[in-house]
């Protein structure tokens, strides 16, 4: 091994090893593993009942149910990921820059012959790598267990759907990661940035829904409203909901994991008339979630650009 690694990868390597060795990450990992196996367990127990009473025994997407089924005691896998993912992203990013600044290591690293953006890019890359490996390992683990316990291998399409679902989850976590990295540049105290990130997350998951409900109630059209008005109203409320990244994620994952979902908005009778009541192929499902996907990517990129420019302009002094 004579190759000398590029400084960027040296930083990435160090960041990854820091994450993996940190208590914080291991606690989060433990939480995620726990919920993952919990939901797998409930999924499998309900799967047995489900198949017993199922009318369509030849459901082509039997395997995907591992990720979506639940008996009600524990939410299914994809809901859990949607819930814990932001926490993971915030956990990996909230002290990315300010802890280095507070411990005086940032100015020391900056005095090394590297470009300034290496630091922030490497921080992002490292956390992204860790999250990707974690989710793919987790997803494949669930698949493996499913295969062993249920005894049915997934079809190629199911496999692809799961891969897309995992990619989407990584992207979703990346959004929160970038947001918290931005906050870590903006706020000097790690606690402030963590709390702010959690506040934003809570706002979006709890309070935003409430606000949208208020707005929806206030704007409810009269009984005599025309169908166009009703549809416009529905669309408007949906679009309000879709400002929230978690809504985008939920929309996208449910569509990917439940092929029977044909549309995320209201459908008129004319549109459904004559449609064959069968699951959509992967390409069509992807087409439905394309706007959600782009929205999530855009959100992630915006957060990254914000943190990048904030970091490049920051004057780095010792402590």
């Amino acid at each position, binding site marked *: *091994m*004579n190759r*000398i*690694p590029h*400084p960027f990868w*040296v*930083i990435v390597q*160090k960041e990854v090893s*820091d994450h993996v*060795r940190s208590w914080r990450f291991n606690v989060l990992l433990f939480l995620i593993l726990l919920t993952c196996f919990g939901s797998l367990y409930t999924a499998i127990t309900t799967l047995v009942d489900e198949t017993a009473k199922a009318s369509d025994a030849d459901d082509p997407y039997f395997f995907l149910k591992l990720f979506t089924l639940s008996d009600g005691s524990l939410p299914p896998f994809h809901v859990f990921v949607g819930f814990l993912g932001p926490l993971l992203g915030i956990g990996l990013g909230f002290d990315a820059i300010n802890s280095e600044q507070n*411990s*005086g*290591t940032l*100015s*020391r*690293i*900056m*005095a*090394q*012959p*590297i*470009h300034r953006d290496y630091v922030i890019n490497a921080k992002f890359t490292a956390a992204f790598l860790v999250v990707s490996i974690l989710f793919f390992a987790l997803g494949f683990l669930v698949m493996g267990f499913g295969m062993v316990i249920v005894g049915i291998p997934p079809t190629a399409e199911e496999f692809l759907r799961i891969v897309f679902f995992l990619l989407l989850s990584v992207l979703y976590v990346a959004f929160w990661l970038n947001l918290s990295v931005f906050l870590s540049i903006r706020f000097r105290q790690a606690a402030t940035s963590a709390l702010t990130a959690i506040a934003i997350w809570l706002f979006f998951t709890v309070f935003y829904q409430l606000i949208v409900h208020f707005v929806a109630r206030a704007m409810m059209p009269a009984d005599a409203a025309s169908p166009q008005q009703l549809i416009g109203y529905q669309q408007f409320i949906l679009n309000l909901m879709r400002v929230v990244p978690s809504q985008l994620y939920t929309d996208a994952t449910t569509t990917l994991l439940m092929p029977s979902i044909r549309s995320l908005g209201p459908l008129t009778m004319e549109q459904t008339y004559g449609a064959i009541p069968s699951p959509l192929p992967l390409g069509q499902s992807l087409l439905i979630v394309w706007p959600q996907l782009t929205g999530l990517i855009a959100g992630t990129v915006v957060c990254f650009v914000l943190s990048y420019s904030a970091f490049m302009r920051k*004057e*780095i*002094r*010792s*402590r």
Partner: protein
Amino acid sequence: MGESIIELKGLTKRYGDFTAVDHLDLSITKGEIFGLLGPNGAGKSTTILMMLGLTEPTSGGVRVCGIDATTNPIEVKKRVGYLPDDVGFYDQLSGRENLLYTARINRLSWRDAEQRVDMLLRRVGLGEASDKKAGRYSRGMRQRLGLADVLVKNPAVIILDEPTLGIDPIGVREFLDLIVSLSREEQVTVLLSSHHLHQVQQVCDSVGIFVAGKLLAQGNVVELSKALFSDREPYIIEACIDKTGMADNDPRIEQAKSRLIELADVTSVRIDECRFYIGSTQDMTATVARMLVDSGLGLKSLSVREYGLDDIYTKYFEGGESYGKTA
């Protein structure tokens, strides 16, 4: 005078209305130890940041090793080692791992990095503690680890920002000795910023005095004191007498004072409690001693004071007050 390795020309940095560094011109010769001396907030750290290209100057330019630090900071940072004040390390890594990280960011191969790091750790006296977590290092050890960290890249210039802050006196002396020997052995130019006069006086070949963003004087300590205090007495003899059993207005004291002032070379005599301060144009310790004893005073100690950085500093602080207000 050799070639200059750091050159600042008309360097200015403003933060809004506040001018941190004001048209600074400075050149530092290769191989010397230069002390940048000034009170807190004088703009020393800002100047250093601009030398490394970590902050952009509002106007003016910096050249280090002939390279423009503002437009080409990477090349400068390859040649310059910088030890920030209150240097930090990754607490969860050992001292050795911290240095290895720096070495690998500087593109040393794993084997070279290990060799160099182990050599440097022994050199700064941390060979024993190299596998201890950096979080458990004492302040002095951290500072020495910092010095090793700076030397990992084998720099031509090292910049130390307040390197002796918060170390005990013995630690300071060891640290300064280390800097001097490193500078002599490895032909490294050292720029040391400090507000500790005595330390700067001990190790620096030349000194720049920096107040409120302006360089007020530059040169070695002897030159500086000559230039600044030519209008005053070059010597001050400080004599401490035994005052036990004497009244405050004992006539013998007044008598001694009048006799002293009659001496040809004595320009002033001042009495403060039990101390005589005798200003003179020549070293006349022996005469003063004899005269005091003759006057029937018990002489406890006698010393000659030359002007040091302390006085230079105080003088500029007095003058610098007005700068401080306008800045």
